[in-house]
């Protein structure tokens, strides 16, 4: 579904991604783990071109979205993204947060968008918050809202950029539950995370990133139980 070939990304003289090539298949759930500054988030953000790779190309369903003249907005509609800091829209009600993109981007009928939004809110236990502003929500609730906001566009891929890193520990669980429910629907997902237990449980494959490259890729069993890469062994010994 997503192929990335020879992706490099430089910020000035700093090379954050070095010739990374991999792919994610339909219905596959891939976790990206690794030390801070290893390039996980940058790689994820390249998938919907929030970061434009310095070189290399990204194929989404066979189409090169890094090519000149491609309208990235149409591709982004099919790639939902969830951020570490939620980035919910504070000036809109919870319901408006969800309906805004379907109504304005997909030109969905307002009434239909509303019904869909209420369904989604019900699924994540936020139905009674539909008419409040996000300022009244807890961190966990904001992140659940951010997830259904992305879901309302009916994406084919979901990208999660450290979705629980900014949460109070007691709110991590509720957000992970929502992501697990989503996994059961067969959604294709890429998840940057520091929650190793979660990555192990949910992933079909895990990419271990170190120093701008995918140092090892494999099933959770392989990555967590029989790692080959020395840096991965060292990393796991510290975080597990």
């Amino acid at each position: 579904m997503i192929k990335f070939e020879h992706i490099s990304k430089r910020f000035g003289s700093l090379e954050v991604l070095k010739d990374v090539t991999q792919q994610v298949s339909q219905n596959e759930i891939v976790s990206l783990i690794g030390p801070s500054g290893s390039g996980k988030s940058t790689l994820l953000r390249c998938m919907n071109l929030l970061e434009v790779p310095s070189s290399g190309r990204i194929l989404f369903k066979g189409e090169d979205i890094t090519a000149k003249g491609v309208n990235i907005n149409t591709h982004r509609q099919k790639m939902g993204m969830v951020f570490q800091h939620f980035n919910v829209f504070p000036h809109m009600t919870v319901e408006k947060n969800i309906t805004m993109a379907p109504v304005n981007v997909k030109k969905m009928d307002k009434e239909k968008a509303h019904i869909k939004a209420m369904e989604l809110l019900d699924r994540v236990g936020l139905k009674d918050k539909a008419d409040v502003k996000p300022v009244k929500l807890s961190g966990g609730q904001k992140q659940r809202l951010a997830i259904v906001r992305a879901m309302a566009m009916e994406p084919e891929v979901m990208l999660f950029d450290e979705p629980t890193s900014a949460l109070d520990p007691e709110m991590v669980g509720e957000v992970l539950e929502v992501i697990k429910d989503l996994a059961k629907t067969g959604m294709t997902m890429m998840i940057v995370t520091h929650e190793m237990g979660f990555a192990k449980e949910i992933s079909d494959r895990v990419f271990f990133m170190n120093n701008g490259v995918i140092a090892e890729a494999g099933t959770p069993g392989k990555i967590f139980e029989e790692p080959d890469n020395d840096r991965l062994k060292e990393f796991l010994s510290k975080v597990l």
Partner: protein
Amino acid sequence: MGTAMESTMAGNIMRVLKDYSGLFVQGIGFTLLLAFIAVTFGTIFGTFVALLKMSSNKIASFIGTAYIELFRNTPLLLQLYIFMFLLPEIGINLSPFAAVSVGLVLNTTAYISEIIRSGIQSVDHGQTEAARSLGLSHVQTLRMVVLPQAMKNILPALANEFVTDIKETSLASTFFVGDLMTTYRTINGATFLTLEPLFIAGVIYFVLSFTLSKLVAYLERRLRA
């Protein structure tokens, strides 16, 4: 002697007020009108200049920056003189009021564009990223996500710019355009009184500015709450 002078002055002020109240009202009207024109059109053009300056296109960004720096680093009075003499020179014959309006608008545009730019940049970049990740275009993101949030910072600053412009327009009296300082000059010419009409104009300026500033401060607190 002192009391005699004070009483003469008080008498003169009463007399000026009685004879020229209509002229003061007219002066207030023109002053407010000039400030209103400057801020209204300054906001429209200022938004455009701010977007130019923030553009990723280097040439557009340079033009925006150059405009702002040019108008902010030369005196307004000099700019007004230049427009007064430049416009007829290039075949545009405007009344003094219109020419002064053009000068004030172009000057205010520079200041307002910086207000709008800092308002836009005060909005967390994550908001833009979230909107773009949903498939919103650059313009949709600006209109539906960034600007509504930037307004909280922009509106009070715009209102303050209006108050500043009320005072700045006094420079326009150089060209006798009917503002409050022009009222002073007219009365001065007719009665040879200086301090009396100046005091009256000063009190009016103060009351206008002070009241409006307090109103803005109140509005600002309401917006932040």
